[in-house]
């Protein structure tokens, strides 16, 4: 699975587990409008750390939380490359 498909599949799984209605996922979707709250994103980051062995948010530099889903995926894709 690619980084992108892993992220998307985790989002769907968490939406079911947390009983959230989520919007149709596309790269321009602002995360604020996705139907996920900050706790859901915390769960997503925890799962992705397990799946991908990556946590871009705990790196030494302060990272702004991404605005759109595309930014979020790009952050993980970049982390996977380095």
């Amino acid at each position, binding site marked *: 699975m690619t980084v992108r498909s892993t992220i998307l599949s985790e989002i769907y799984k968490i939406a079911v*587990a*947390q009983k959230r209605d989520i919007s149709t996922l596309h790269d321009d979707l602002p995360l604020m409008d996705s139907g996920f709250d900050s*706790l859901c994103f*915390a*769960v997503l*980051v*925890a*799962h992705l*750390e*397990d799946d991908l062995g990556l946590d871009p948010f*705990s790196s030494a530099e302060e990272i702004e939380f991404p605005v759109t889903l595309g930014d979020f995926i790009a952050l993980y894709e970049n982390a996977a490359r380095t």
Partner: protein
Amino acid sequence: MYKIVVTGGSRGLGLGIAVRLVEAGYEVIAIARKSTKELVAAQEVANRDTPRLHFRAFDLSDIDGIAALVKQLRAEFGKVYGLVNNAAVGTSGILSNARVEQIQSQIQLNTVSPIVLSKFLLRSMMAGGGGRIVNVSSIVGFTGYSGLSVYSATKAAMIGFTKSLAREVGQLGITVNSVAPGFLDTEMTSEMEQSHKDTIARRSALRRMPEVIDVANAVEFLMGEKARNITGIVLTVDAGNTV
């Protein structure tokens, strides 16, 4: 088998909790700066068939090292289901005479460290779909005790932490509770005079002091399935000292 991290699990209450949890069927990772004869003896019994009681040395006042500790634990043991924040120091003394560094280091170990350790281990519980955190507070966190102002502040802090975190992670199936022991016979209270201990016992409803095993039983209860609908509470185990 559910894995539980018990800080300060090398002696005193922490060791009592670790042993009780192993007996109840959990796999326990005890953390302290150094092992003890008592812990090694308990490991010999617990690990006879399969390893159930592990020890990892770590100085929990090294806040910056906690992320790496958790990473190492995850790599070695996989998902962690529970955390017992038990390690603490109980330095006593008149506040006006206390050194500022001593105040800071006590708050660091008793409050900052368990909060940071919870932060990192929560990840594992979130990904695992549930979990348990038990914070060891103390009755002095709400009754007060002369000479223990800093220590009491750190123990009261754990109660506020417990309640807010319980609200934050409840919807993920993670419970967060505190236990508040009364005075126990451990190294922490070894300098207390016997007459003082007798007074505490006399003033308690049950006319005795609670023992390590009583508090360990309370922790085991909060860890277990039977406590699935209990979160954000303070379970006082003090033989009726504060009623």
